[in-house]
Every structure is written in C-alpha cells, then in structure tokens.
C-alpha cells in the first residue's frame, strides 16, 4: 500500500509540476502586479474581406479563415461598422469591419510571458468555441484531481513516516483548525 501511494504521489506530482508552477507564478503576479511588466506587444494590420457582411459572426468567420484563431467575443454592431474581438489566451484580435468597403482593421495584442501565464490561470470550462481552450479546460480538471489526489496520498505518506509524525500532526491540526475554521466563519457571513 505504501509503495502504491508513494508511486501515485510521485506520478501525479511530476505530471502536474509545470501546471502547478504556472498557477503559482501567475498567482504571485496577480497578487503583486507591480513586480512584473504586463505590457503586450501591439501591432495593426488591414485585411480585405468581402463587403456587405452585416452579421458579425460572418465577418468573424471570414477573419478566422485568414488564420486568426480564438473565441469570438464582445460583438458591437454599429452604424457603418462592426467591432468584435477574437480571443485566445496569448493573443487578442480587435477587429473593426466596414461592410461598405470590406476593410477589416485588425489590432493584434500579444501577451508577454507573464500576461500569458495570467490568461492561462483564468482559462476554464469545456464550452468554448475555440477547441484548444476546451483542451486547456479539460486539463484544469485533470490537474485539480491530481492536486486533490496528491494531497490525500501526501497525508498517508506523511503518517507512515514515524519521524515526522509528531511535528506533522501539529502542523496539520493547525492548518485544519485555522483554514477550515476561517472558511466556516467567512461562510457564516
């Protein structure tokens, strides 16, 4: 049993390591944003699309056919133009399409490393139009299960180590009393 638990803890841990480092580092960035530069790289380009597309989704499909990948968001139809965004974790395309001319001005905002980690931290769900975000979402679930599995196997592995049992019991009790106690107190409003 001990060997199985140890191997499980190891395999789950090394599989998740890079993901957990991403969550940890991006959490530090969100807590201390002044420590990091989050400035994206912004470029602009113009595409010639078919004129007369009055539906933003049709215009977005035409833009995506040119290689712009992501979820369609923030559609703002207006008189004489339609504005929308195509978003994936590292890149945001802001598109201004004019149906009279078919011209689409595309502003591309590419995240820095920390910006990308920040966006990856927020990726979740399996309902996105852009399939790769759903793949990230699936791995969020996998890593979450792995984290819970590592926590539980970790408790077992600690308990089996007699040398750390006493100190560990004090630390675990402190964590449970403090953490669970605060959660209950906060939840009670």
């Amino acid at each position, binding site marked *: 049993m001990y060997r199985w638990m140890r191997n499980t803890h190891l*395999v789950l841990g090394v599989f998740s*390591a890079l993901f957990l480092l991403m969550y940890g580092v991006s959490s530090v960035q969100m807590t201390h944003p002044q420590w990091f530069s989050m400035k994206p790289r912004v470029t602009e380009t113009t595409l010639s699309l078919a004129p007369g597309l009055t539906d933003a989704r049709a215009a977005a499909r035409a833009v995506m056919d040119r290689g712009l990948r992501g979820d369609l968001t923030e559609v703002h139809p207006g008189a004489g133009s339609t504005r929308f965004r195509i978003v994936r974790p590292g890149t945001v395309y802001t598109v201004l399409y004019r149906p009279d001319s078919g011209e689409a001005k595309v502003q591309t905002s590419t995240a820095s490393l920390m910006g990308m980690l920040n966006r990856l931290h927020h990726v979740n769900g399996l309902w996105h139009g852009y399939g*790769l975000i759903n793949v990230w979402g699936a791995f969020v679930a996998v890593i979450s299960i792995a984290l819970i599995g590592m926590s539980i196997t970790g*408790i077992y592995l600690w308990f089996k180590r007699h040398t750390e049992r006493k100190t560990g019991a004090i630390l675990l009790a402190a964590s449970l009393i403090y953490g669970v106690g605060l*959660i209950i*107190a*906060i939840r009670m409003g």
Partner: protein
Amino acid sequence: MQSLIRKLHIYAGLLIFVNLLVYGITGLSVTMKPAPDERPLRVPTVRYQAFTPPPNLTDLQVAEQIRQSLHIALTGPVHNYSIQHDAGNNLVVNLWTVNGPFKTTVLESENRLRIEDYRNSLWDAINGLHATTGRTEVPDLRLRLWAAYNEFALWLLIGMSLSGLYLWLASRPGYWPAQISVAVGAGVFVLLYILTR
C-alpha cells in the same frame, strides 16, 4: 540535503493542506460550470430597509453610506464601477462579498433601500476564497487572516512543485512511470502554450 528538502516538502504540504484542497475543488467546480448563457438565473433574496440619503452627497458618497448602514461584514470600500443607475434613474450600488453580491437600489421617493442578496453557492464561495490574497481591500479580520494564509500557500505551492521535482530526481530518477509522466505533462503544457499563444 535530500532529507531536509523532503522534510520541508512534507511540512509545507501539511501546513497548506486546506488550501490545496481549496485549489483542487475550485478547478473542478469551474470546469463543471455550463457556458455563461446557459447558467440558471440566480434568484435573490429581497428585503427592504429604511434609508434616506443625506442631501448634497455624490453617488459614491451615498454608496459608501449604504455600505456602512447595511453592516455587511465582508465588503470593501465602494468604487465607481460598483455604481450605476437603473431605467428609473435610481442609484444602484453593487456590494461584492466572497459569499455573493448584494445589489442595492436607492428608492429615494420611498425613503428606502431595496436589497437583493445573491448568495453564492459553497463552490463559488470557495472559488472566491482561492482568489483572495493580500490585495483584498476588505477590512474584515476573517478575510484578512485567510488572505494572508492564502498568499503563504501560493508561495509554498511554488516551493513544493520545485522540491517535488528535486526529490524525484534525487531519489528515483530511473523510475520510468515518472519519466513518462513528466514528459507527457510537460509536453502537453508546452504544446498547448505554443498553440494558444
């Protein structure tokens, strides 16, 4: 050295055991959520309370008066983005807490507040707690204590990820299931990073 790192890894894990479960539960709960437009509409609990805004105050000042008069423990200072007006030009103030938002509407002609309590599910509250760190402006002691503990936990999470890798390489680098696991995990991460950049 290996013995010390192992000891620290164990103690860190025990110290932040609750946080690790919070992070894991959060990840699962957000994955299970349907698309935003498919989520069921939340029905608030509604109550009314007498309130007359003092004269000559700005909307922001009235909003802060509302926050203080309602004594909702887990709120922080009001900001401009919390304030809007409804179709009847009544001042609407949103007060956010980790247990869910309160939407308050100032019914000035009736000298009362309409208070809508949109209480979060336990899972959404845990999600809110996982994101609560030292940046929170909420003065409530419970939340401040949690925020400090949570920030401590996220630093230890980084340390445990690195120490875990070290412990594997120092003790059992030839264990092939771990070799495959790290290759697959890291490979998936890097590939997805490149493809979604």
